[in-house]
């Protein structure tokens, strides 16, 4: 619920519960000038005027005298104003309007006062929500800027190193070749780290989140298998995608779902030695869909399992294997899976292999 809709809810609730034909929430002026209209119900914002000086509004709402009818929006003959906040810290005013034959009296004033007290809480909530929205906007802006600022120098450095390694800066001695090769390796790692960090930050930023919708799991796995097949073949690993019978659809984003499976299949290929197998399969399970990614790789030792989904964590055998990794892939996978209402489980035997199981609730296709 954003800050604006909280104020609208307050105005609507005031009007419906009194009852009154119209209501408005007024907020303090920004910088200089008059109080501003925060929300309206049943009246036009332009017709709303300040009914009472907030410094004079005490614990009793102010009931507008008939003689002051010119301060009212057209069509309305009676009104009340109650203070939001307190005399020492006025946060605004809640004004309600009545059309004939309505005339506000003491019981209405009492009810308005009670509403104003609740309204003060709502206003504080709206203010904090607005602050959080601003913070989120700042965070997403930071991510966008960081994306370019971090990636750009790394990409340029990689380009330069490639030119040197391919001989375009002159012939290379063996030592030069070796050292530039090492630099290239560290730069590639840095590139992966930047990408993984930014992907994780984006996953955690609601402001950057795309609208979820129905996404076909079968198609996503097909895309991922196609993408990673060359990598598997190059390493001499048999990648098998066992397609399933019926179309299975979940509520997610295409990019998010692809990222989950790319990370899991990529890991499987990375940590499986040449000659091994990686198998992708899926099946319906009641009203869920279950995806399994199984490999005959180095496996995960039991003591590593509780830490597997922590940021930057890599199992001891992964670290000593010489295989490069950022330790951010699985935490990103878990957060995305949970965002889509699913869960992830892992079973593994060191030296034999690993199975990751991801389960999502199915959704209706909306065509």
């Amino acid at each position, binding site marked *: 619920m954003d800050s604006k809709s909280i104020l609208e809810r307050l105005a609507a609730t005031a009007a419906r519960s009194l009852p009154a034909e119209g209501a408005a929430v007024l907020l303090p002026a920004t910088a200089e000038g008059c109080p501003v209209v925060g929300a309206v119900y049943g009246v036009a914002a332009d017709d709303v005027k300040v009914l009472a000086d907030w410094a004079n509004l005490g614990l009793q709402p102010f009931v507008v005298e008939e003689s002051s009818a010119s301060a009212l929006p057209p069509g309305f003959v009676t009104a009340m104003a109650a203070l939001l906040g307190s005399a020492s810290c006025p946060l605004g005013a809640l004004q309600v309007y009545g059309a004939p034959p309505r005339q506000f009296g003491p019981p209405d004033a009492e009810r308005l006062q009670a509403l104003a007290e609740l309204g003060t809480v709502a206003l504080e909530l709206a203010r904090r929500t607005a602050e959080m929205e601003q913070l989120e906007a700042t965070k997403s802006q930071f991510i966008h800027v960081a994306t*370019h600022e971090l990636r750009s120098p790394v990409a340029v450095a*990689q*380009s*330069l190193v*490639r030119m040197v390694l391919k001989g375009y800066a002159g012939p290379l001695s063996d030592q030069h070749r070796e050292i530039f090769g090492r630099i290239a390796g560290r730069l590639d790692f840095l590139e992966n780290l930047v990408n993984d960090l930014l992907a994780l930050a984006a996953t955690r930023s609601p402001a950057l989140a795309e609208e979820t919708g129905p996404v076909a799991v079968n198609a996503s796995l097909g895309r991922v298998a196609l993408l990673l097949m060359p990598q598997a073949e190059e390493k001499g690993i048999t990648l098998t995608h066992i397609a399933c019978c019926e179309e299975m659809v979940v509520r997610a984003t295409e*990019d998010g779902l692809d990222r989950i499976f790319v990370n899991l299949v990529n890991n499987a290929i990375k940590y499986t030695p040449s000659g091994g197998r990686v198998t992708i399969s899926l099946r319906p399970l009641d009203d869920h869909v279950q995806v399994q990614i199984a490999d005959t790789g180095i496996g995960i030792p039991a003591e590593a399992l509780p830490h597997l989904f922590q940021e930057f964590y890599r199992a001891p055998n992964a670290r000593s294997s010489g295989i490069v990794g950022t330790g951010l892939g699985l935490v990103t996978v878990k957060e995305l899976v949970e965002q889509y209402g699913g869960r992830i489980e892992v079973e593994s035997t060191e030296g034999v292999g690993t199975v990751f199981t991801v389960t999502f609730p199915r959704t209706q296709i909306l065509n």
Partner: protein
Amino acid sequence: MNKILIIEDDPDMVVALRLPLEANGYQVFTASSGEEGLQKVVEIEPDLIILDVMMETTTAGFQVSLQLRSPSPDSPYAAYRHIPILILTAIHTTTSLRFGPDEAYLPVNDFLDKPVDPDTLLTKVRALMGEAQS
């Protein structure tokens, strides 16, 4: 038939592009901004333009390609509309943006991802120059 204009604001990237191109006999000219780039197109009449998608502003590369390919008959670049454009891009994995040549939005001939691989660069340059010849 071998003049290449590189419009790129990062001097290190210019070096990375220049090395393989000059080693293969191309004559390389450079501009460090979109504005300077447009001036040099008129001055030099290159056979190929290599353009970075993002320079001093996020849309600098787009602006240059749109101006060069402007269909307006009064465009100062009407005589240069035929020059092939190779655009350098960095794929952003945090958005779902999928680049593709687009008549209205991004009128270019081909893309090259950063980091630049010299072999890929040369293959694309040769293809674009070859196309222009026929």
